[in-house]
């Protein structure tokens, strides 16, 4: 036991004396959170819009007024010719345009009704759809206000609510994903590198020729990174709550327990990689390329799994972060309890047991 503690203390010396490791360990998560939180926002705000008002009546002015007031749009300028609209689209200063016909106000009171043209730049389909929806909503609201007493005999009014994230806060979606990604990198990559470094420096030779049990080498390597990963996790949660206004709905204890389970899975994977590689570079490459890409692509937080070709959907089942992502989303954002995530938890636990036993079994007691 004393030996194990001495070994763990030594591991902490290594971590805190190596700037590179420290940077990956703590710099990386913070940068990721800030990057995803602010720079890579999927929310749509300040969409450039051009307005060509050929009517110049009360009704068109009121609609323009409402669009201007909305935080989603930024009215660039009112332009007169159609060719101007096209030019603006091309130089990218606007994403959509609204064209009012000459008799917009008068047509409103006719039986045929009046028309309004909305143009959107669909080279980015998501933004285009969102912008068109927002505009339609504004116009519809105006129409309602125009004749509040008008009632149709048959009318279906959909009552829309976006559950669990009504304010459409983009941070909610990526926070669980980033946490999974960071665990994958910190726990898997750093652990594998830490073991392989002993091989590369030749210290493994001395460790093997000692009374210290080889298996304890692995455990002593894993424990510091488990602790560091948990510290990392707390930092990420604090950043998410206080900087990105993410509300944690579920039980913190459950979130922590599930995270520890996932970290152990990642550590086992790291130890497994370290068993089959002999240089730090190879270990880094395998864990970065082999782990980071699948985590990014096949977890579901960047690209929805449902839309992928079925082969990728099948592969995604062996990516541990997929289950962790599902668990954290359910617990953290939806406030669900263990009863709803037991299946994912079981799969993750199974993966941890299998990976760890392979890692321990394959650990070489000789060179």
């Amino acid at each position, binding site marked *: 036991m*004393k*030996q194990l503690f*001495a*070994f763990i203390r*030594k591991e902490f*010396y*290594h971590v805190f*004396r*190596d700037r590179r490791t420290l940077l990956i360990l703590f710099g990386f998560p913070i940068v990721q959170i800030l990057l995803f939180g602010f720079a890579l926002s999927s929310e749509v705000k300040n969409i450039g819009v051009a307005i060509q008002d050929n009517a110049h009546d009360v009704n068109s002015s009121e609609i323009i007024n409402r669009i201007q007031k909305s935080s989603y749009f930024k009215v660039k300028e009112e332009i007169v010719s159609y060719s101007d609209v096209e030019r603006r689209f091309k130089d990218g200063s606007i994403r959509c345009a609204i064209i009012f016909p000459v008799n917009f106000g008068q047509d409103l009171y006719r039986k045929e009704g009046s028309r309004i043209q909305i143009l959107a730049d669909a080279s980015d389909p998501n933004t285009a759809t969102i912008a068109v929806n927002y505009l339609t909503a504004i116009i519809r609201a105006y129409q309602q206000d125009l004749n509040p007493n008008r009632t149709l005999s048959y009318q279906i009014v959909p009552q829309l609510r976006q559950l669990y994230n009504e304010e459409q806060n983009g941070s909610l979606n990526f926070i669980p994903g980033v946490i999974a990604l960071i665990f994958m990198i910190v726990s898997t990559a750093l652990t594998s590198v830490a073991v392989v470094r002993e091989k590369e*420096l*030749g*210290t493994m*030779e*001395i*460790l*093997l*020729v*000692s*009374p*210290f049990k080889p298996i304890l080498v692995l455990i002593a390597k894993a424990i510091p990174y488990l602790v560091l990963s948990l510290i990392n996790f707390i930092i990420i949660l604090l950043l998410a709550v206080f900087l990105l206004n993410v509300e944690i709905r579920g039980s913190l204890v459950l979130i922590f327990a599930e995270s520890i389970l996932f970290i152990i899975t990642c550590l086992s994977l790291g130890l497994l990689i370290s068993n089959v590689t002999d240089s730090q570079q190879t270990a880094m490459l395998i864990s970065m390329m082999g782990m980071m890409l699948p985590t990014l692509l096949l977890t579901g937080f960047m690209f929805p799994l449902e839309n992928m070709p079925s082969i990728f959907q099948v592969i995604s089942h062996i990516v541990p972060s997929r289950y962790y992502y599902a668990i954290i989303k359910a617990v953290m954002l939806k406030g669900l309890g263990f009863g709803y995530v037991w299946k994912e938890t079981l799969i993750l636990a199974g993966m941890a047991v299998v990976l760890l036993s392979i890692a321990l079994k394959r650990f070489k*007691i*000789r*060179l």
Partner: protein
Amino acid sequence: MIAVSVKNIVKSYGNVSAVDDVSFDVKKGELFGLIGPDGAGKTSIFRILTTLLLADSGTATVAGFDVVSEYQQIRNRVGYMPGRFSLYQDLTVKENLTFFATIFGTTIQENYTLIKEIYDQIKPFNDRRAGKLSGGMKQKLALCCALIHKPDVLFLDEPTTGVDVVSRKEFWEMLAKLKEQHITIVVSTPYMDEARLCDRIALIQGGKIMSIDEPAAMVKNFPKTLFAAKADNIYRLLEDLRSDPSIESCYAFGEYLHLTLKSDEDHKDAIFAVANKYSPANLVVEKITASIEDSFIRLMRDRAITKEFNQVNDGK
């Protein structure tokens, strides 16, 4: 009492034979040297004895335990210093020593007497990181770490390679003192001058042991009279003497040539007679006693001749 016993060990990596049917015994309390150039198979033998490598065939015991089936017992009892400096470079001297003491289930205090003399020399640098020590200091620290648990057998793989002359001398003085503590020491080195400091040595080349004996006996058993010669144009002299039919062997050795005659004549006049045929300027000839290196070169030459002979015979 036998501390280390090696019987018919064979180890090859793919097609390359590293250790070729090697057998030797090391007595308890002995300072045993494996002497040979780089690539002779010394490190492979060390790794097999420290249970890090499995031999292809043959058996070996260390401190009475089998290197394969009882490897854990051996690991508890030996000290091992690999050829490359293998301590934690980012840990200080004190931290390294404390770490290895703890790993071996002991403390610095417990066996302090054993390492005191060596440790005293590096103590002023207690808080310096191991990576920032000089070569000699690193070796002393590594030796301290290998000794900290008072091992029965100490394996030192090329401990003086890349170390300055003064530190090398100090290092061997330390080994002599450790011997007084009844620790069996197996050491390897490519430096022939260090061989005479061992109790017994094994000369090894190409994975084969050529000779095992006490250094003094090995020198005494040199079968021929050895001469040293030099002249102004030493390269010319070397070529001339090599091509002369009465010369058995001739090779450069420092600023001299070492040579033996095919006949049994043991007076330097015989060499003068041969050399003067080529009228070298300022010829000097001395009769000298052979060193370990001369023995080594002679053994290598004998092996090469045998090998050639065998190849010719096989070809028939």
